[in-house]
C-alpha cells in the first residue's frame, strides 16, 4: 500500500513564540508518529454539491461591485511529482480592499464593504486548475506586537484526495514590504519555502482594461515510494 511522503522541516514549528497566539495553544509534547493506514490514505472527495455557480467570483455576489483592485487569481493544485489534483475543493477567505474582514470579531476601524463578503470556493478541473475573481485584500493591523501589520494575503483551504494531504495556508503578494516584520510568514523555517506562498503577477492572465492576473500553484504531499509492510516488518 502506498502512503504519502512526510515533509521534514517544511511547516512552521507549532512552538513559534514570536507569534504570540501560539503560547497557550501549541502542544508542548512531541507528536506520536502515526503510520499511514486506510483512514490516512483516503479522504473526503467533496464534489460539486459543495459549490454553486458564482462561488468563484467574489465580485458579483451583491447588488454593486466591491471597491478595490479587481484581480483574477488562478493556478494548479499538484502533488510533488507534478501530478494534478483534479475535482478537489478549494476554499478561500480574505479581507476587503481596506483590510477589514466581514466578521464580528474584526474591530479594525477600516470600512466594511457592503458588496464584499470575502468568501469563495471552487473545484479544480481535470488539470488541477482553480480560478477566482476577487479584489486585492488590504493589509491590516493586529495585536501581536506593537505596530504589527499582516502583509496582504488570501487564506486558502485545500483537500487534495487524502486526509494526509489536507492543507490550510495563506497566499501572499510579490514584494510586500511587510514580510520582514510578520511572524506568521517568517515562521516557515526555510526562506525558499516562504517564497512558495507568494503569487506571481502574470500578464497572460491579466485581462486588458479589466483586471490584473496573478498565478499561484499549490503543491501537496505526493505518494511515497515506501511500502508499509517492508518498512515495518
Amino acid at each position, binding site marked *: 500500500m*502506498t502512503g504519502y511522503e512526510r*515533509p521534514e522541516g*517544511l*511547516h*512552521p514549528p*507549532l512552538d*513559534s513564540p514570536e*507569534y504570540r*497566539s*501560539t*503560547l*497557550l*495553544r*501549541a*502542544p*508542548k*509534547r512531541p*507528536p*506520536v*508518529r*502515526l*503510520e499511514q*493506514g*486506510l*483512514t*490516512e*490514505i*483516503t479522504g*473526503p*472527495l467533496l464534489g460539486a454539491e459543495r459549490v454553486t455557480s458564482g462561488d468563484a467570483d467574489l465580485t458579483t455576489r451583491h447588488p454593486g461591485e466591491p471597491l478595490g483592485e479587481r484581480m483574477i487569481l488562478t493556478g494548479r493544485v499538484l502533488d*510533488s511529482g*507534478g501530478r494534478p489534483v483534479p475535482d478537489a475543493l478549494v*476554499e*478561500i*477567505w480574505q479581507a476587503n480592499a481596506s483590510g477589514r*474582514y*466581514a*466578521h464580528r*470579531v474584526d474591530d479594525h476601524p477600516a470600512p466594511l464593504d457592503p458588496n464584499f*463578503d*470575502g*468568501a469563495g470556493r471552487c473545484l479544480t478541473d481535470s488539470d488541477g486548475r482553480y480560478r477566482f475573481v476577487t479584489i486585492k485584500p488590504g493589509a491590516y493591523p493586529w495585536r501581536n506586537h506593537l505596530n504589527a501589520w499582516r502583509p496582504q494575503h488570501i*487564506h486558502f*483551504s485545500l483537500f487534495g*484526495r487524502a*486526509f*494526509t494531504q*489536507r*492543507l*490550510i495556508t495563506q497566499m501572499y503578494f510579490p514584494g510586500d514590504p511587510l514580510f520582514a516584520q510578520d511572524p*506568521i510568514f517568517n*515562521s516557515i523555517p526555510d526562506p525558499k*519555502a516562504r517564497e*512558495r*506562498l507568494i503569487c506571481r503577477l502574470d500578464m497572460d492572465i491579466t485581462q486588458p482594461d479589466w483586471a490584473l492576473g496573478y498565478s499561484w*500553484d499549490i*503543491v*501537496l504531499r505526493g505518494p511515497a515510494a515506501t511500502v508499509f*509492510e517492508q518498512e*515495518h516488518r
Partner: protein
Amino acid sequence: MTAQRGLTPSQTIGPFLAIGLPWPDGPEVVPAGTAGAITISGRVLDGAGEPVPDALVETWQAAPDGSFAHPDDPRGAGPAGFRGFGRSATDSAGRYHIITLRPGALPWPGGGTEAPHLDVSVFARGLLHRVVTRIYFADEPQANAADPVLATVDPARRGTLIATPAGETGQFRLDIRLQNPQETVFFDV
C-alpha cells in the same frame, strides 16, 4: 519522472475562518435523526483551560461496514453515499459537535485490526499547522486493547483519545486539550 516540486507550507487558519469555512450541514456527516446516528461533542481548550472559540474540528472516518467510498482503498471503493467527513467550527464556549454513524473496524496494513476510530484535524488561530488526533470509543474496550495505533501511545495518555458515553444513548463526549497537563495525544501523520 518530473522534477520534484517544493511543497506548499502551512499557515494558521487565523481568527476569521467563519467567513469561509463553516457549512450549514458541516457537523452532519449524516442528517440528524438518521437511524443509528451518534453525536460526538466536546470542547477545545487551551493551555490555561480556557475554551478556544475560533477552532475548526474536522473528522474523517470509515462507514459502519469499515469501507471508504474512495478509490485508493486497496480493498476497492465502498458504496458511495456515506460522506465520512464532518466539519464543526467551535462556538463561543469552545464546543464542537459531529453527528455521524459509528465507523467500522479496519484491517491494519502492518497486520492486525484497527478499532473503530475517526481521524481528527484541529485548526485554530495560534496553530501554524493543523494538529491531528483520533477519536476512539470507550464502549469498545476489546477492540481498543488490540488497536495497533493506541499501542504506540503511552498508556497513561490513551484516555485523551477515547470518547466516553454521556447521558442518553448515542451521545459521546471528548474534550481536546491543546496543552499540558492533560494534553491530548497528537499524531505526526
